[in-house]
């Protein structure tokens, strides 16, 4: 191939493998796979530079269906494996596919440490609020009092809010989307792809076998506009079928839901600032869904990209030492310290 001819642009098909996809018919994972396969060709990255890493669980079968480099690792450890890949090859585009059990239960430790280090990974957390691959036990995101195979009288655990956890771990990019909101999901993935540091995306996903309707309160046509608020940077926080409700700051720093009437206008509402350097505002937003009358936010909560990536700092430190000391000389190293000659 001559340098003058460019390779043909990549298409969705280039990212599909010949492997039979083995998720249950109707699983939300299909929609996520399709969205990712659509977005990858648009990123201007060579196919061989993509690596998809996963742990264990239904979602973690993801790499087998992506025609890129792929590594299906062990339960919970994908962030750590991916960190090793990124440390050695910062030039690679590494995506992690994980689930609520994988990322928040067995792999919780790796998730928070990856985020606080700001490793340049894109993390897709498929949240269906259930253990699917082991056939239906409650997960760390299952609602309180959830009746499952392992909790016939209801679960007694309080759930994690993945977005709150990520923001609390000082993640520099945190977003949420939904399996069935295809265009929103693709947009969110593109935002994540554009972020240099750790990009954490919670994807609300249905498990039609073990937790059908996990997110129906958000996804059913009638509910959608009343219960979901879409976060868009620079735009006021408005929701409702008639776009007649919004989020307003109150003097103690908290927020409240207001109706846009009786003199309350858009200008009174919070204007979404995803680029705020501090995570406190994004954390406040992440708690809305737990409060009566508040909607559940989707979109980009936080996208603050001023923190250097972990792998860049690691490599820079090495380059700085080499620049200062010169490249290591093995004979000098072996002969370092106090030595003596035996004749």
């Amino acid at each position, binding site marked *: 191939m001559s340098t003058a001819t460019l390779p043909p642009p990549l298409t969705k098909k280039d990212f599909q493998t010949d492997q039979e996809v083995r998720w249950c018919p109707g699983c939300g994972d299909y929609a996520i796979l399709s969205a990712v396969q659509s977005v990858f060709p648009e990123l201007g990255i060579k196919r061989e530079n993509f690596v998809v890493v996963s742990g264990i669980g239904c979602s973690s079968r993801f790499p*087998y269906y992506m025609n890129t480099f792929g*590594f299906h*690792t*062990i339960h919970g450890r994908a962030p750590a*494996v991916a960190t*090793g890949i990124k440390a*050695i090859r910062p030039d690679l585009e590494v995506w992690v596919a994980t689930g609520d059990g994988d990322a928040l239960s067995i792999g919780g430790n790796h998730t928070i440490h990856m985020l606080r280090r700001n490793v340049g990974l894109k993390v897709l957390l498929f949240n269906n609020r259930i253990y699917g691959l082991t056939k239906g036990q409650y997960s760390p995101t299952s609602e309180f009092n959830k009746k499952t195979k392992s909790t016939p009288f209801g679960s007694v655990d309080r759930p994690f809010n993945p977005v709150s956890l990520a923001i609390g771990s000082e993640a520099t990019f945190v977003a949420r989307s939904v399996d069935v909101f295809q265009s929103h999901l693709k947009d969110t993935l593109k935002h994540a792809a554009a972020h240099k540091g750790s990009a954490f995306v919670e994807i609300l996903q249905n498990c039609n076998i073990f937790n059908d309707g996990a997110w129906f309160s958000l996804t059913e046509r009638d509910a959608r506009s009343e219960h979901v608020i879409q976060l868009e940077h620079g735009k006021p926080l408005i929701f409702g079928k008639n776009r007649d409700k919004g989020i307003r700051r109150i003097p103690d720093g908290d927020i409240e839901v207001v109706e846009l009437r009786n003199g309350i206008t858009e200008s009174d509402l919070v204007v979404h600032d995803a680029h705020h350097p501090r995570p406190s505002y994004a954390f406040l937003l992440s708690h809305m869904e737990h409060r009566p009358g508040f909607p559940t936010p989707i979109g980009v909560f936080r996208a603050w990209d001023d923190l250097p990536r972990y792998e860049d700092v690691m490599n820079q430190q090495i380059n700085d030492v080499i620049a200062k000391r010169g490249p*290591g000389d093995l004979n000098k190293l072996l002969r370092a310290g*106090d030595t003596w000659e035996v004749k």
Partner: protein
Amino acid sequence: MATITETPLSKHRERIDQAVIRFAGDSGDGMQITGSQFTNTVALYGNDIATFPDFPAEIRAPAGTLPGVSGYQLHFSSSDVYTPGDAVDVLIAMNPAALKVNVADLKANGILIVNSDSFKEMDLRKAQLTSNPLEDHSLDKFRLFAVELERLTRAALDHLGLDAKSMDRCKNFFALGMCYWLYNRSMDSTVRWIEAKFKNKPLLVEANKLAMKAGYSYCEATEAFQISYEIPPAQLAPGLYRNLSGNQALALGFITASQKSGLRLFQGSYPITPASDILHELSQYKDFGVMTFQAEDEIAAITSAIGAAYAGALAITTTSGPGMALKTEALGLAVAVEIPLVVCDIQRGGPSTGLPTKTEQADLLQAMFGRNSEAPVPIVAPATPSDCFWAALEASRLAVKYMVPVIILSDGYLANGAEPWRIPNADEIPAFPVQFAKEANSPNGYFPYKRDPQTLARPWAVPGTPGLEHRIGGLEKQDVTGNINYEPLNHEKMVRIRAAKVAAIAQEIPDAVPAGDPDGDLLIVAWGSTYGAITAAVKAQREEGRRIGHVHLRHLNPLPANLGEVIKRYPQVLVPELNMGQLLWLLRAKYLVDAVGLNKIQGRPFKQAEVEQKIEDMLGV
């Protein structure tokens, strides 16, 4: 022109072959520094040495108590040294607790230097002594020198204006100065060390130097010390030498392996005793492109290394037994995805947290079998501190050649012990350049599990290589294609291939050649850090006319191909180990040999005498 010189009549020098000296005190008394300074000095002079640092797990146990005692033993000689010595010629005890813990190892008529300033009522009580050993004649069989270390040190430093506590901290250097006089050694290298160590604290440079010189002069001046000793340099093979501990040697070995393979070195590690020093060492060498990653836990330490290896690095992870247990599942992943990786297990006493600072060899069966299902891993064991260098090279070479994780079994004794190392010329160490897969290996594309017929290694295609996109993972794979496959016969085939790949390494392992007698009345088969004690014992017993062979295994999995045949040449087989008989168990199972164990599980290395006693028992002499 001939002159008559007056020599101090009362003092004389005695030439001897070897000595064993032990410094013992509180964890905070600086015994490890004192011991390593004395070691450095005698090594630079040209003696052969072996050291045994022995310290508690607590950083500062309550001062003056028995659990707080820290010791450093050094054996130095004008001939070959194999062990730190069974018993000591000179014991320096900084307090009653140190005396009580160590005095049983002092030879009769041995030199005992004690800090008499720390034998007050309260000190004795902390050491659980009911009477003062300096007064109750319990030490009569030794040459006792009760020296007021604190008072004398303070007197020497009086003019510097230091507070009492700072002056007392210099008393170990007073004791060190005494030992330098006792063995006629120059203080120069320690002076250099003090100057470098305290370069920003000139007052402390002065204080420590003065304390050491005061100790030296004290021996010179006082009538109590009549004899000093001289131990001529050893006849070591010509070359340039340095002093090297096992953990340092591993670090240097991995840097060398990185250079020789052309691969970037990545270390994922989580701090754990006694392995942390490897991380400390390697983190200094960024000029060699070394990437060290202090992970959030032991699991992230190994899985980050697996990721780095997948991306094309020479990846290692370093730990001790408890960390090894946590890495188990990930090690199985490395076996399944056939990724090169070196795992260093610096063994310590167990189970569980066990004896963090004490040595043991009880992780052999864990290394062999400690994973779910059939997951064979090659195992390499260094025999001496400096041998850790070569073990690191060998393990790295095997890992990349066979695309397999390899375990190095070192232990606390090798890790912290030191010996003179003849420095190799780096240019003469063979390179083992690695070729990543660059293009498809079949007309139908790239198959990640299409193997090299010789080594059974699969190709190593790193991300970023155009056209070689492929998926790997922990699920069972189809032979050749690497696609997920649950078929019964394919699974059995893959299990057998993974086993055959590790077994195939035996083709290139050197045959076992017994040291000592090639056939005879007794064969000793052993591994790891017991090398020194066994070598010394076999040497001594053969000088008595006994016919003994000694095979010290570098490779524990697979074993040398001829080992079964060697075992048959001897009517009796002895397997000394610092465990309940783990190699013994393997040898009995594999070769159906009625081998006998010598097993010590005390957190301490074998003494030469213990091995000799067992040999004599078995030979009926």
